[in-house]
């Protein structure tokens, strides 16, 4: 039988009785129907997310290469670069150590009160960084500059490392450690070779988030008098030096993208294999023995410094600060500010969650190049600090809408939604993973169209996770300061901006209640979130 190059499907020799060697599939493959609606929706989302970067590039090209170069290559840039990089490196390293150590103690040892510590060490994440720095700086003036920034930022953001590391230690296969020990590897070397190896991806992922937060932070560094790219962009922008803020933004975005690219390179390697089909086995906790006392002391100190001082400071200023009548300044109702904060935050959270849905669905349920390109492109937003997004959006309204929309609530909400899209995506993806594809298939085999399946099965199952994604964005928007200051609708105040106004006035006693309300407002959803992400993934019940 000659293996003639068959071009027509189904044009095989009729006597198929004798199995021959495997022929390649004949002819061009038929195309499976593509989820066109989903692809379109995801493409629209990707386009929206790309807007800030596009505007920034348009602005940059408008300014001209020569002017940009003169604005970039000057001593100020170098000093900003040095400040920014130095702080980022030191704080990221500190967070990696504190976060990993805390996570290991909580997840893998018999530390007394593990469940309580697990919550207490995460709560500082909910406290806005500028409130933490206010807490320290208003009490002790030595908390200032580089030293102050390192202390405050480490205490404010180490949970970003703690959370993923704790999760990965919880999910990791304890069998690997047991096998290593059985092969004669000492416990210390097992920790280094196996445990840290298992958590490596989580540690690096946490460090990435820390670095990105540091690059984007404005409020805390302004209070502490530490100059970085972001603070300088903010200052230039407020002074209407658009070209200068554009030039610095380019450098800042480049830095952020570098951090992202570094993470991409690292995370390509390292696969996890687990043969067991059952849920993760819990490893027996390591006994601390007498060491539990120093470890307990360290945990108490960490919580005291990260959580106690901001709260105590706010309470202190409320009790002993100058009475509001003497400190002057406009009196804005706390309720009024809280109402606006909730309105903007809620709208942004809803918008970001809805935007994340098509991208997450595509990422989880479909294969193909388009999917990869679309999903990856949305990661670019991670590299866009809030100040740059706000700057780009206000530039857009200025240039193309003749100022229309500037200083309105929709612009601020859009800015939040774009900034916090990655957070929403993480939550939505995690929740969709709880609605396995096999259920979709069953639903379709029962005669349900794609949209009906989405509404009747996928979204219903993902609902708790979607709520978590909503909370995550809400939380972030409520405590956002930088973009809010730049885009706040005319005549309104949020908790953050009003706090900022009082703080800048040194009206600490008036700023304090706002700080306290933000802490409470942010802590509750973060507690709920913590509970959600701590539960192991399960589809039943």
């Amino acid at each position, binding site marked *: 039988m000659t293996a003639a190059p068959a071009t027509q*499907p*189904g044009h095989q020799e009729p006597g198929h009785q004798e*199995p021959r060697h495997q*022929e390649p599939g004949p002819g061009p*493959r038929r195309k499976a*129907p593509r989820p066109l609606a989903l692809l379109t929706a995801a493409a629209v989302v990707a386009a929206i997310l790309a807007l800030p970067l596009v505007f920034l590039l348009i602005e940059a090209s408008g300014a001209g290469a020569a002017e940009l170069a003169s604005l970039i290559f000057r001593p100020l840039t170098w000093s900003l670069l040095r400040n920014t990089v130095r702080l980022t490196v030191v704080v990221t390293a500190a967070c990696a150590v504190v976060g990993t150590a805390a996570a290991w103690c909580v997840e893998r040892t018999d530390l007394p009160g593990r469940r309580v510590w697990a919550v207490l060490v995460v709560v500082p994440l909910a406290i806005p960084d500028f409130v933490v720095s206010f807490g320290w700086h208003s009490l002790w003036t030595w908390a200032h500059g580089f030293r102050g920034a390192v202390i405050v930022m480490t205490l404010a953001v180490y949970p970003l490392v703690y959370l993923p590391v704790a999760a990965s230690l919880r999910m990791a296969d304890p069998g690997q450690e047991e096998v290593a020990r059985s092969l004669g590897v000492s416990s210390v070397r097992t920790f280094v070779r196996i445990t840290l190896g298992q958590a490596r991806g989580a540690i690096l992922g946490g460090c990435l988030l820390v670095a990105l937060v540091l690059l984007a932070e404005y409020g805390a560094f302004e209070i502490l008098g530490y100059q970085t790219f972001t603070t300088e962009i903010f200052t230039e922008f407020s002074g209407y030096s658009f070209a200068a803020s554009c030039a610095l933004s380019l450098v800042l975005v480049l830095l952020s993208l570098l951090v992202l690219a570094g993470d991409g390179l690292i995370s390509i390697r390292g696969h996890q294999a687990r043969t067991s089909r059952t849920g993760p086995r819990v490893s027996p906790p390591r006994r601390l023995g007498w060491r539990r006392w120093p470890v307990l002391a360290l945990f108490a100190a960490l919580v005291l410094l990260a959580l106690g001082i901001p709260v105590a400071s706010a309470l202190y200023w409320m009790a002993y600060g100058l009475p509001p009548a003497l400190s002057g300044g406009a009196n804005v109702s706390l309720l009024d500010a809280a109402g606006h904060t909730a309105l903007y935050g809620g709208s942004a959270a809803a918008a970001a969650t809805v935007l994340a849905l098509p991208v997450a669905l595509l990422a989880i349920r479909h294969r193909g190049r388009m999917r990869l390109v679309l999903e990856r492109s949305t990661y670019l937003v991670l590299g866009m600090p809030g100040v740059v997004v706000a700057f780009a959006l206000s530039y857009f309204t200025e240039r193309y809408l003749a100022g229309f929309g500037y200083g309105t609530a929709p612009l601020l909400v859009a800015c939040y939604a774009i900034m916090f899209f990655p957070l929403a995506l993480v939550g939505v993806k995690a929740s969709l993973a709880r609605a396995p594809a096999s259920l979709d*298939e069953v639903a379709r*085999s*029962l005669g349900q169209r794609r949209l009906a399946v989405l509404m009747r099965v996928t979204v*219903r199952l993902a609902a708790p996770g979607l709520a978590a994604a909503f909370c995550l964005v809400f939380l972030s928007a409520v405590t956002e300061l930088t973009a809010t200051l730049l885009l706040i609708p005319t005549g309104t105040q949020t908790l953050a901006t009003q706090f900022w106004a009082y703080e800048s006035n040194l009206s600490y006693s008036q700023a304090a209640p706002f700080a306290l309300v933000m802490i409470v407002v942010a802590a509750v959803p973060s507690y709920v979130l913590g509970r959600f992400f701590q539960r192991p993934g399960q589809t039943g019940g």
Partner: protein
Amino acid sequence: MRQVAVTGLYKAFGAHPVLTGVDLEVPAGSLTAILGPSGSGKTTLLRLMAGFERADAGIIAIGDATVDGPGGYVTPERRRIGYVPQEGSLFPHLTVAANVGFGLPARQRRGGKSGKGDALLETVGLGGLGRRYPHQLSGGQQQRVALARALAIEPAVVLLDEPFASLDAHLRASVRADVQEIFRRAGTTAVLVTHDQDEALSTAGRVAALRDGKIAQCAPPEDLYRRPADPGLARFIGDANLLDGVLDGGVVKTLLGCLPLDPAVTSLGTAGQVTVLIRPEQIDIGPNESGIPARVMSCRYHGHDAVLDVQPGNAAAAPPLVVRVTGARHLPAGSAVTLRARGPVFAWPAD
């Protein structure tokens, strides 16, 4: 109920071909098992029938309608297939009754107690459990609900993907028997995918052996076991002793003596070298009977029966024969025994 016809089906994932020309007929009202080792592409074949994947080439027809072919492709929701996946995949957020009624039109669903759903639950032996949630059911019960859910839409064909694999051994037999009975009474056309040959042979009316991306043979279980298409298939389905033999008239001469040839063999002439299939239970064993002297090399004891490796004395160089005896016999390694084979035997031309 409709018949299913698959012709010249190709499917590759990337550069890796999975199905390379599958031809399969599933007659209306039959239960056909697709038997293949893991990775043989049997689940892919099922998913192609269901429409979750699209074939690269070939035709799938359900009844008179071509659902996948050069002309077009019918989406899963319009194929009327009852799909029962491996783990049951019940919707965890819905009650048992809502799961069963999931595929019914909205009007029937909202009618509260749908008589149909209740009747189906009754059929699968779960009457009265409609208000439970899936996590409150045992694995076997979940599997039955998944079946009722698939039957509720009055499917043209039911597709089952290793539906009993996740069940405990003792549950498996009873659920399997129930499913068989339900299908038999309803006259359901069903395709069942499994890697378990016991399951395929005991459950299905027809068994299709999938090998190297093609259907090697599709036949009733007794035919497939006693008259496999080639020696490889004989080994794939059950234990097999493949002996050299010489055909002369209707009799084959082997090292176990002269045995009558199965009259169903048509591929042979009247004389010549052949390969003979002797199943382990075709060999009688006894220390006292007249027969070929042999020695037990090893014994694998299963309780109800035992499988012996036996070396015949007249062929010390040949591989040991596999013999099955009842578990009541105690024949430890080293026992001296005699062998006698029972015909008729099946054979192919020697290669």
